[in-house]
C-alpha cells in the first residue's frame, strides 16, 4: 500500500536547474541545523562561520580557490567522459599518476630553469594521466569491458605505486626516512599570486574550462561527443568511430586529472607525499554531476565545494568535533544529490489503494 510513488517526468520543470539545487541546499541546511541544535550548537552561528571562513575574508577566499583548482581540473576531465556515457571513476588515480610524472621531472632536473622544467612537468603529467585514462579505455573500446570497475581499480594501483616510490626509490635522503620526496627546487614550483597560495594552476583550470567549452560548442568533434553520448547506434550510422571517440575522450579526461596532480605538487606541497589528494578525484565526480557537465558550472561548483572543504576545519573552533563536520558536509551532499532525482522524476500521491 504505497502512498507515494516516483513517476518519470514527461517534461522538465521550468527552471529546475536552479530551483532544485537551491531547495536541496536549504533542506540540507535545515536537517543539519536540527542535528546541530540537538548537539547544543547554534546552527546559524555554525553556518555563518562556515560561510565566513570559506568566502568571508580574502584569506579564506584564496584558500577556497586553492581547493577549487584541483577539483575543477579533475571535474572537467570526468565531465568529458561522462558526456559519452563513459563512467570514469579513475580521476583520483590519474591525478596521482600526473603528480608522479611531474615529480619525476622535478627530481630528475633539479637545476633546470622554471621556463623549461614547468612545461616539461606539465607535459609529463598530462601524458601520464592521459595514459592512465587510456589504459581502461582500450578494453572498453574493443571488448566492452566495464570501465567503472577498471578505472576504480586503477586508482588503487596508482596510489600504491606512488606509495612505493616515496617509501623507496624517491625517498628524501635527508628526510629521516619519512615517506616524502625531497622538496622541489624553485624551478619546479608553480608561482602563486601575491602572498596567497593561489598558484598559476588557476589559469590552467580556467583555460581548460574554456577549451572544453569551445570543443563542445564549436567543433565537429564536440558534436560527435554529443551524438555518441546520446546514441551510439546513431553515431555509428553517421559513420563516427566509437572506438576512436572512447580512446580520445579517456585520454583527454585522464590528462586533465593528471594536470591537476601536477598543479598540486608544483603549487602546494612542492614535493610528492602520501595523502596528496584528500579524494579530489572522487569529489570531481559529484561536482561534474551537479554542474550537469557544463564547464562553467563546474568552475562554480568546484569553488563552492572547495569552500565546503576548506571551511570545515574552522568549525572545529566552534567546538564542533571533526566527525560532526564530516557529517555536515556529507549531509549537504546527500541532499543535493538526492534532490537531483526530482529533475527527471516527480512524486505521485496515490490515495488509499489497497
Amino acid at each position: 500500500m504505497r502512498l507515494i510513488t516516483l513517476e518519470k517526468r514527461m517534461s522538465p520543470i521550468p527552471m529546475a536547474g536552479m530551483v532544485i539545487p537551491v531547495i536541496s541546499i536549504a533542506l540540507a541546511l535545515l536537517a543539519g541545523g536540527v542535528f546541530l541544535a540537538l548537539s547544543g550548537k547554534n546552527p546559524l552561528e555554525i553556518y555563518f562561520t562556515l560561510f565566513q571562513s570559506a568566502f568571508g575574508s580574502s584569506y579564506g577566499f584564496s584558500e577556497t580557490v586553492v581547493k577549487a583548482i584541483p577539483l575543477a581540473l579533475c571535474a572537467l576531465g570526468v565531465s568529458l567522459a561522462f558526456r559519452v556515457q563513459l563512467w570514469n571513476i579513475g580521476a583520483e588515480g590519474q591525478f596521482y599518476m600526473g603528480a608522479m610524472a611531474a615529480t619525476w621531472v622535478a627530481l630528475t632536473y633539479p637545476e633546470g630553469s622554471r621556463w623549461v622544467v614547468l612545461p616539461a612537468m606539465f607535459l609529463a603529467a598530462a601524458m601520464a594521466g592521459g595514459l592512465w585514462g587510456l589504459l581502461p579505455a582500450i578494453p572498453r573500446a574493443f571488448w566492452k569491458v566495464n570501465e567503472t570497475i577498471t578505472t576504480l581499480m586503477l586508482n588503487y594501483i596508482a596510489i600504491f605505486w606512488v606509495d612505493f616510490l616515496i617509501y623507496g626509490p624517491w625517498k628524501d635522503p635527508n628526510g629521516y626516512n619519512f615517506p616524502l620526496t625531497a622538496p622541489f627546487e624553485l624551478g619546479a614550483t608553480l608561482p602563486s599570486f601575491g602572498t596567497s597560495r593561489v598558484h598559476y594552476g588557476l589559469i590552467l583550470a580556467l583555460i581548460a574550462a574554456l577549451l572544453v567549452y569551445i570543443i563542445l560548442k564549436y567543433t565537429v568533434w564536440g558534436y560527435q561527443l554529443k551524438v555518441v553520448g546520446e546514441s551510439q547506434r546513431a553515431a555509428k550510422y553517421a559513420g563516427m568511430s566509437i572506438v576512436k571517440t572512447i580512446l580520445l575522450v579517456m585520454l583527454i579526461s585522464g590528462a586533465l586529472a593528471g594536470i591537476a596532480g601536477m598543479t598540486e605538487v608544483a603549487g602546494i606541497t612542492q614535493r610528492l607525499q602520501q595523502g596528496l589528494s584528500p579524494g579530489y578525484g572522487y569529489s570531481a565526480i559529484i561536482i561534474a554531476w551537479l554542474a550537469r557537465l557544463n564547464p562553467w558550472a563546474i568552475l562554480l561548483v568546484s569553488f563552492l565545494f572547495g569552500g565546503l572543504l576548506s571551511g570545515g576545519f574552522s568549525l572545529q573552533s566552534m567546538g564542533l568535533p571533526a566527525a560532526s563536520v564530516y557529517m555536515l558536509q556529507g549531509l549537504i551532499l546527500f541532499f543535493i544529490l538526492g534532490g537531483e532525482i526530482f529533475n527527471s522524476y516527480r512524486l505521485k500521491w496515490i490515495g488509499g489503494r489497497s
Partner: protein
Amino acid sequence: MMKMKKLFGLAAMLVVMALVVAGCGGGQTPASTDKKEDAPKEGTGEKLKVAYIYVGPVGDAGWTYAHDQGRQYLEKELPNIETSFVESVPETPADAERVLTDLVNKGNKVIFATSFGYMDSVLKVAKKYPDVIFLHCSGYKTDKNVGTYFGRMYQPRFLSGMAAGKQTKSNTIGFVAAMPIPEVVWGINSFTLGVKSVNPTAKVKVVWTNTWYDPAKEKDAAKSLLDAGADVIAMHQDTPGPMQAAEEKGAFSVGYNTDMRQFAPKAVLTGPVWNWGPYYVNTVKAVIDGTWKSEQYFGSMADGIIDLAPYGDMVSEDVRKLVDEKKQAILDGKFEVFAGPIKDQSGAVKVPEGKTMTDEEVLNMMWFVEGVDGSIPKK
C-alpha cells in the same frame, strides 16, 4: 499542480519547525558566543590563546588523546590562558598550512603541532608570523619562533620490553609499527633490548602499517602477527586496535601512549605512556614570563614527560619487582638503554662496550638491533 502545492506546504512546515528548533538551540549559547568574540582582542592583558593541531581525533584513546589530556591539564593549571584545538588535520601542507594560519588569525600566540608531518608547514607559517610561537612535536627543524619537543620514550619502552620478554611463551613478540622513521625504529630497538635483557632467545617480529591512525589496519596487522606465532603484541600506533586483537586471541599486549588496560583488560601487561601536561605548563609559563627560547626539548622519565603504565593483573610480583628496580635505575641515571655492547641484526657490534649512543645518534637511528625480525625499507 495541486500536488506540487501540497509538497511545498510540507516543505514550508518543515522549514518552520526546524527554525523553531534551531532558535531554541540558539537560545542557550549566546553567553559563550559573547565570550568568544571578546577574547581575541590583543594587547589588553587578556587571556593568552594557546592552540593545538592534532593528527587524529581526540577520542583516539592514544596519541592524540594523550596530547589533549595535556592540553586540559594546561588549561586547569594556568588561569590566564584559553586553549583550543583542531583535530584530524591531514599531514599535507594543503590542509595543515591553512589550519595553522587560521589559528594565528584567530589570535593564538602559542601553537602546538603534535605530529611529525606538520614540520614543513609549521616552519613555513612560522616565518610569516614571527610573533607567534610554534612548538612542533617529534620534528628536527627549529627556527627563532619554532621549538621542538619530544621524550626519551626508549626508557619506558625498554621497561615494557622486559615485561613482554618475561610473559612470552612462544618467544615470538609481535610489534605493530607505524612508519619506518627513527622515532619508531629506536622505539622498536629499545623494546627489543628490554625483551632480550630478560629473555635472550626471544625475537621481536615487526610489521609496518604505514599509517599513524587507522584502527582497523592496526588491528589487522596485529592479527597477522598473532597468526605468525606471536603471543605478545607491542605497538607504535595511535589507537588501542592492536590491544583488542591480542585480547580477542587470548594473547598479551603492551600498550602505548596511554594506560590501555580498559580496552583489553585481560591482555595489556603495561606500556610506555606520555604525560604531556607538565611540559605544556612549563612551556606556556616560559612564554608568559618572556623566558621562552627556541630549543629541542628531549625529556626523560626523570622529567616526568614519560612513564610506564600501571601493570595488568597478570603481571607477576617477581616481574613487577624486576622492572621496578630497572625503572629506579633509569630514574637515578644509573642505567642507559643505549649503552654498549649493542649488535645490529647482522651481529656486527654497532655500539662498543663502554660507549653510549649520543642523542644525535639515537635520533638518526635507522638500523635494527639483534633480535628484531623485520627490515627497514631502504632505497
